[in-house]
């Protein structure tokens, strides 16, 4: 029997004063990286808020591993658009917090946090406070905290939106490495076409508000991907196609 999708969104709508999200459906398979691309203000963050279960105004159904879930708080590793690190905690304590909220003992949480920092190249900054970190480092720390909390399905809301091009490139590779090592399922939003193509297996294109899925494109570039791939013919062809759709 075929495995059910890791995450299935069916006819999701969100209405505040006006309709923000209109009847969105899509599926994400286990181990996939899927990107949601759409103009600023179209409702990408709202979509993630709805999926993560913190809105009351959403309609539709959401399935995790094939079963409908109404209580979804705590089921995703949700990284918000701003890094939202706690300024009163050092980097390692921020990461440890992820494990703690999940319910781990303090001691165990600490060991695991330190392991994670060592494994993913942030151990040297472990004792820094967030305010002393560069934008890229903040994003790394926030990502590790998210993974500490829940590494089953990640929702990353414009994770690289605030970074300069060079840092962003480095973080793309960073994310891909984590994804490969921890076998994650990742859904992320962006308004950068190249970023969407470079990282994902599939790209969903959203319309302006109210957001609907205009189309989706499968990205069949081989993995592991390298920065140079972005200049390949195939890549440029996909980029052209996506641009014409937006």
């Amino acid at each position, binding site marked *: 029997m075929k495995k059910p999708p890791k995450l299935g969104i069916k006819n999701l709508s969100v209405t505040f004063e006006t309709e923000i999200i209109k009847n969105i459906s899509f599926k994400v398979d286990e181990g996939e990286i899927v990107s949601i691309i759409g103009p600023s203000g179209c409702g990408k963050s709202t979509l993630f808020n709805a999926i993560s*279960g913190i809105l009351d105004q959403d309609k539709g159904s959401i399935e995790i591993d094939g079963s409908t879930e109404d209580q979804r*708080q*705590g089921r995703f590793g*949700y990284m918000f658009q701003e890094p939202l690190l706690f*300024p*009163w905690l050092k980097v390692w304590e921020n990461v440890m917090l992820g494990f*703690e*909220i999940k319910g781990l003992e303090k001691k165990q949480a600490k060991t695991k946090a330190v392991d994670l920092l060592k494994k993913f190249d942030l151990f040297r900054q472990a004792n820094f*406070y967030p305010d002393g970190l560069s934008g890229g480092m903040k994003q790394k720390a926030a990502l590790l905290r998210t993974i500490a909390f*829940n590494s089953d399905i990640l929702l990353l809301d414009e994770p690289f939106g605030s970074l300069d091009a060079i840092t962003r490139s480095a973080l793309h590779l960073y994310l891909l490495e984590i994804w490969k090592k921890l076998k994650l399922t990742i859904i992320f939003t962006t308004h950068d076409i190249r970023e969407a193509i470079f990282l994902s297996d599939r790209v969903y294109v959203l319309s302006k508000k109210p957001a609907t899925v205009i189309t989706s494109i499968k990205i069949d570039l081989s993995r592991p991907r390298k920065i140079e791939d972005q200049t390949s013919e195939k890549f440029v062809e996909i980029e052209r196609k996506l641009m014409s759709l937006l």
Partner: protein
Amino acid sequence: MKKYSLPFLTALIILFIWQAAVIVFKIEQWILPAPSQIFIAFWQSRSLIFYHLVPTVTEAIAGLVGAIFVSVFIAVLMERYQIMKKIIYPFLIISQTIPFIILAPLLTLWFGFGFLPKIIIIALVCFFPITINLFDGFQGVDHSILRLLKSMGASQKQIFKLVKLPASLPAFFSGLRIAAAYSILGAVVSEWMGANQGLGIFLIRATKSYLTDRVFAIIGVITILSIGAVLLVEIIARISIPWHYNKLKVKS
């Protein structure tokens, strides 16, 4: 240190002008003693001053600690229950229009001349800035952080312990700094109602005896105590919330 050198210098100049004026204009000592005379008066009565300083400082500390407990209790209550906020908040604001010192005679009537009525007065004077600052600190927590914790399925208790409490510490210390200065003042004034020992009563006695140099010396000591109390709070704050001071440094 460099940033303190200018005000320090200014103070020295003022003292010098004061000293010179008293000498040049031959001002009588019982009206305005020269700084040198004040210092001599201080030195001569130093053991007396110390004798009176002990209860004043003790009362101030006891009153301040009492105020902290009351404040934390009220602020947490208002944060936790919307209804409590609605009930208490208006009273809190109105209470600020009452100069608590006028309650002193009443408290003396009920509790006598001992420590208790003084500590109550001091606590009453000190609790407001702590309560208001702490409560504002709770309210001012970044909403996105609260949503983040909600998305993680954190309980109200976890949210309070992990976010609201640490996030409001800088505000708490702002309130505590003000309260610390009030505490010494409150102790001195509460002693005016009646006491055997204390800087407040010592000040009154010196005034009645026209020992103006001693009055100035006592005023000086009270001022230094107030500054010392504020500095102490500042030091504790810097040790307890180093991240807050790092942040200020990064911003500037």
